[in-house]
């Protein structure tokens, strides 16, 4: 399909419902710089043809994004990116991603499996939230 900047992947087995997966993938693309302000999102029909999900799901996702102010629907032309989500500058993700990869390598060398690493992360997130509350 000519001119599509982003293609979606909907995992039927994920805990997140399909519409949420689309919202998250759009936000992620915006954060990573794949999508920029002014880009056109794939049409409902394009998404549906590629993923075989219900068209209302796509509509709902796009409405959510519109409500959050990230995109705007222009009648007859499609849905376009309006704002980036608030967050760190684009480079941050790759920088943090790299240091995370280093940490993962270190943890694995120390003998931790995926589950232990995940629970460490969860503990750290919770601790941080509790700190903020406190």
């Amino acid at each position: 399909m000519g001119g599509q900047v982003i293609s979606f992947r909907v995992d039927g087995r994920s805990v997140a419902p399909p519409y949420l997966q689309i919202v998250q993938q759009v936000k992620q693309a915006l954060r990573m710089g794949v999508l920029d302000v002014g880009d056109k999102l794939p049409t409902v029909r394009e998404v549906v043809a590629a993923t075989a999900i219900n068209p209302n799901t796509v509509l709902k996702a796009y409405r959510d994004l519109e409500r959050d102010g990230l995109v705007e629907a222009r009648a007859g032309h499609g849905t376009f990116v309006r704002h980036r989500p608030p967050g760190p500058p684009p480079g941050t993700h790759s920088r943090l991603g790299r240091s995370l990869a280093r940490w993962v390598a270190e943890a694995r060398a120390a003998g931790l499996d995926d589950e232990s690493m995940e629970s460490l992360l969860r503990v750290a997130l919770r601790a941080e939230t509790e700190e903020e509350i406190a």
Partner: protein
Amino acid sequence: MIEVQAVPEAAAAIRTSGLGKRYRRVCALSDCTITVPEGRISALIGPNGAGKTTLLRLLAGLTRPTNGELTVNGGIPRQEPAFLASIGFLAQEIPLYRRLSAEDHIGAGAHLNPRWDGESVRERLTALTIPLDRAVGTLSGGQRSQVALALTLAKRPRLLLLDEPVAALDPLARRNFLAILADAVAAGGLTVVLSSHLVADAERVCDHIIMLAASRVQLCGDIEELLAEHQLLVGPRKDTSAIERDHRVVQVTRTPRQVTMFVRRCGPVIDPAFQASDVSLEEVVLAYMGQDAPPARAQLNSIGDNQ
């Protein structure tokens, strides 16, 4: 009592009330009251013999009900060209002429239908690299299904009824079929009811569900709302009469220490002893299919008491 969402009169593609069909001594469908709003892709789920095919054929006007009423696309199904043109019915046995090619079928369709978009058939089939000039009997099962679907969509129906359309297809063929279906609905003006065994497909492409078991309707409504209304409650074994009174318990399992209840909430569940978790569509379907007979409170209680 089955709660059916209230839909404004004009917007329902299908509306039935107390619909029933009896063949001699066998009751294929009884007391079926459902509503399918326009623009939905509805999954008709149920075990074999639950009455799915019977319901589809009643909706298509292929057979007449023994009791109850139904309106389809705002009218009563009857054998007349106007009604036939407004529905599309795809039976499990794909009715194509094996010796004729897809192109021949397109030609036939042009002569037989009041509204006909033959070009759309060619486009869809070419996009799937299905040859138009070969005898249909030489194509694979998945390709034949696609030809039949494309031909049915070309007559621009308002309601599409599909009887186990993807049962015999491989995963890729299944995905392509559902994608074309969803795309047709996205284009507007189409409502779909497809019967299936596979809940996974339903969850992906459907936004409405009709569940049949033992020739009766167990569930009918938008999937999202039904998922929000159902919860799994797990807690220590104790008196559950309060919950049973305030909400509708679909299934109960009791062990000496624990009680697990699958409920349909009427309002929030305020009981700290119970841990509530969301459920998937498959769990909902299984819970309702696990019932042997139309739900009765006394019956459910006795299941637990025997343990």
